């Protein structure tokens, strides 16, 4: 196929050269119809955004295109020709390259080794190691990433890992690049960079399928948007017709008016205080969260904001400093000690620190919270009560499908996240520390979670919201600490909390420097 004139600008009319066509695709799992008669087409040079609530079937669709899962019905055409494939290798040979929602690099290998894993350069089983760095640098240059090829992947920040995944995806003859929530765990600046990269790649003639829950990205990245709901295609729109409100309505079937609930903040006594905390990633951090308050911590990736939450919960070592929970000192933090004192922490890395994926959703919801759920007495389990509580939270957080007896790994990413939230909410704790609570969560559920946080604060709980999503911090927090390189560089209250004020401090400018006039906001 000949290259088509690239459309580098979002919103330009799509070129009618269907690189990929999907016709009435269907996929059933036992008890779930994940995809139902879905059509989709992607042209070369186009960025096509897939939108839908958690569990709508987005990941399932792209897993089929990636050859990881088989469709139950329907067909796939590449360049107008019917193709059959059911292994990732075959998909790759057709030029379809996929970057999955869940991390897929080998963390203990270097960047270069990861890039060429499976097809290391060399002959007859011998690896030509000396050629790796140069080849890797070439591949990384395509994504404009300045990452040393010899670095071990685990030591890189998430944004760099994401770029490595994309560089890996672009190796070979990639013509269609599929990105499943690539910006979910990136900060604003990193996301911006990634979106620019995606546009540039589209400009080079690649077709791109881009999945996201961040609606504000759509005008910047998309040419067209397809909305899925409950496995069905609801609509496909050019980006100029895809106003945020319209999309939300198509996705959820309702309109979400106020994402962030309005609330009166009447702070009570301090519930969580951190004093002079110093650790591997932190220097002399002091913060306080009062009853009835929502306090945000903002900062770039690597600013240490997550380390604050982890340290209070005993997951990160602390060298010096004091943590106080509800007025009593908490000398050597540990998870079980924290929970006993009424401090709940919601980890951001749900696969590693959050969930036992091969257990039922019920077991994950009540993990460590069995007695809080009233489902255990003298060590004996009351399984009916356990199930009742699980059902209750599945309903309140609208987990789909609403059957918590299923294995957790069978739920979509966003729904897994909800199980994690449910676990903490069961405990009637005084302090709730959320670390990136809405990563991968759809807009309807986001609204629900914000409402839940507001309710917690209303009920006199102290809420600490650690987030890379600036809009979320601005919308929810009564006070904001801004962190940079392990230190608190600003403390903003009430009216002072504006986007430009927070952004000014993101890059470490201290309180004394005057904020940039006007145009600091993105």
């Amino acid at each position, binding site marked *: 196929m000949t290259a088509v004139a690239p459309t580098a600008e979002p919103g330009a009319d799509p070129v009618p050269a269907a690189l990929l066509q999907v016709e009435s695709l269907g996929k059933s799992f036992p008890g779930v119809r994940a995809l139902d008669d879905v059509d989709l087409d992607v042209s070369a040079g186009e960025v096509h955004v897939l939108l839908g609530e958690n569990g709508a079937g987005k990941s399932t669709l792209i897993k089929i295109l990636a050859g990881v899962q088989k469709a139950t019905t329907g067909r796939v055409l590449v360049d107008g020709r019917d193709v059959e494939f059911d292994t990732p290798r075959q998909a790759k040979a057709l030029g379809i390259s996929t970057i999955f929602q869940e991390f897929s690099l080998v963390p203990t290998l270097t960047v270069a080794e990861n890039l060429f894993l499976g097809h290391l350069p060399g002959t007859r089983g011998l690896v030509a190691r000396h050629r790796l760095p140069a080849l890797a640098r070439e591949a990384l240059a395509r994504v404009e990433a300045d990452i040393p090829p010899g670095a071990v992947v685990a030591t890189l920040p998430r944004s760099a890992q994401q770029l490595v995944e994309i560089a890996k995806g672009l190796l070979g003859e990639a013509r269609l690049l599929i990105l499943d929530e690539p910006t979910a765990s990136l900060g604003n600046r990193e996301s911006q960079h990634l979106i620019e990269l995606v546009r540039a790649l589209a400009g080079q003639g690649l077709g791109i399928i881009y999945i996201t829950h961040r609606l504000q990205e759509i005008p910047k990245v998309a040419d067209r948007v397809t909305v899925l709901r409950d496995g069905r295609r609801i609509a496909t729109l050019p980006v100029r017709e895809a106003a945020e409100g319209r999309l939300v309505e198509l996705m959820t079937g309702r309109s979400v008016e106020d994402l962030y609930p309005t609330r009166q903040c009447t702070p009570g006594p301090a519930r969580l205080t951190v004093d002079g905390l110093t650790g591997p990633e932190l220097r002399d951090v002091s913060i306080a969260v009062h009853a009835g308050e929502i306090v945000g911590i903002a900062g770039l990736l690597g600013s240490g904001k997550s380390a604050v939450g982890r340290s209070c919960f005993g997951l990160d070592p602390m060298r010096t400093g004091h943590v106080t929970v509800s007025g009593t000192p908490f000398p050597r933090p540990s998870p079980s000690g924290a929970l006993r004192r009424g401090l709940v922490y919601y980890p951001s890395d749900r696969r590693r620190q959050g969930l036992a994926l091969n257990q039922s959703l019920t077991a994950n919801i009540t993990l460590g919270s069995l007695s809080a759920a009233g489902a255990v007495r003298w060590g004996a*389990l009351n399984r009916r009560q356990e199930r009742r509580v699980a059902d209750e939270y599945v309903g309140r957080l609208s987990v789909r499908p609403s059957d918590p007896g299923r294995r957790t790994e069978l739920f979509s990413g966003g729904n897994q996240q909800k199980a994690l939230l449910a676990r903490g909410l069961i405990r009637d704790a005084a302090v709730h520390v959320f670390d990136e609570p809405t990563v991968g969560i759809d807009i309807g559920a986001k609204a629900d979670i914000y409402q839940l946080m507001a309710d917690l604060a209303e009920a006199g709980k102290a809420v600490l919201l650690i987030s890379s999503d600036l809009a979320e911090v601005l919308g929810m927090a009564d006070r904001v600490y801004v962190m940079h390189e392990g230190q608190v560089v600003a403390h903003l209250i009430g009216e002072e909390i504006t986007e430009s004020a927070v952004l000014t401090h993101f890059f470490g400018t201290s309180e004394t420097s005057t904020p940039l006039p006007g145009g600091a906001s993105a």
Partner: protein
Amino acid sequence: MTSLRSTTTSATPVAPTMTPAARGPARPLRSRVLGAVLKNGLLPLLLLAMVTVFAILEPRFLSVDNLTNVGRQSVYLLLITLAQMVLLLCAQLDLSVGATVALTSVVTAMVMSEASGPTPVVILLGVLAGIGIGVLMGLLNAFLVAQLKVPSFMATLGSTSIATGAALMLSKGAPVIGLPLPFLDVFGTGSWLGVPVPVAIAVLFTLVLYGVLYWTSFGRSLFAVGGNQHAAAVAGIRVKAVLVSAFVLCSVLTAIAGVLLTARVASGEATLGSSYVLLSIAAAVLGGTSLFGGEGRLGMVVLGVLFIGILSNGMNLVHVSSYVQQLVIGAVLVLAVAVDRVKATTQ
């Protein structure tokens, strides 16, 4: 339902299916059988097939006597497999079960043959000493794994050597004899209401373990630690305590098997039990227990034990040589794991 189509899609008629074989219109029986196999694995079917084959080849196979025999022979493996399962559930492994049996046997026999006093007291002392060995072995393994972070594979390989050495040292390599007769008569060959005593004991412990695994919060913690140790810790589970309990539970169940086996062979032997290491892992995995933790069903594990018990009993009856038997059991194990993997990837 009609969907809003705001862009043009090609008007090609809906083609048949991409994967015609994946789903036929009406195959209820086939899909039901397939569903049952996917849910429970091949084991129940294999077990049924095997019983049928042996029953046809050798009519004596289904006699009450022979079936009682199968029960008698299988209880030791059952107890040790349950022990192994507890550890597999929390993503650990115990290679020292055989050595635990040996050391238990020697210590129990020595205590019983050397203690003086009323027979019931002597027996009780011996049994308690055996169980004590179980506790010690469990604590040793747990210390190595939970405290020193030695992988359980290495830790229990080491403790195997330690326990075997101790058993040989204590017994000076010779069988320990002079066990009280009532001990042999009751725990070795006795029956109670027609049920062999060891069988009754094994059934009792199976039921207890069932309760522990599925109806206590400890059971939940066990599965959670095996499913994801990090996540369990973050959720407030005291992972170390769970691991210690699991190791102790495992070794105590094994020690009980060791005591019963001692009564059965009527002497304390430092060579007893080594075959149970492989067999217990085999039976547990046959029963669908995952080697990676967090997955396994007690009922299926019991079937796994029965499968191995019946297989060796049947092969004995039809005069298959013990060399061939070993080969068959190895093949079955590898096959079982392979089927399990296939099952996992098709889900």
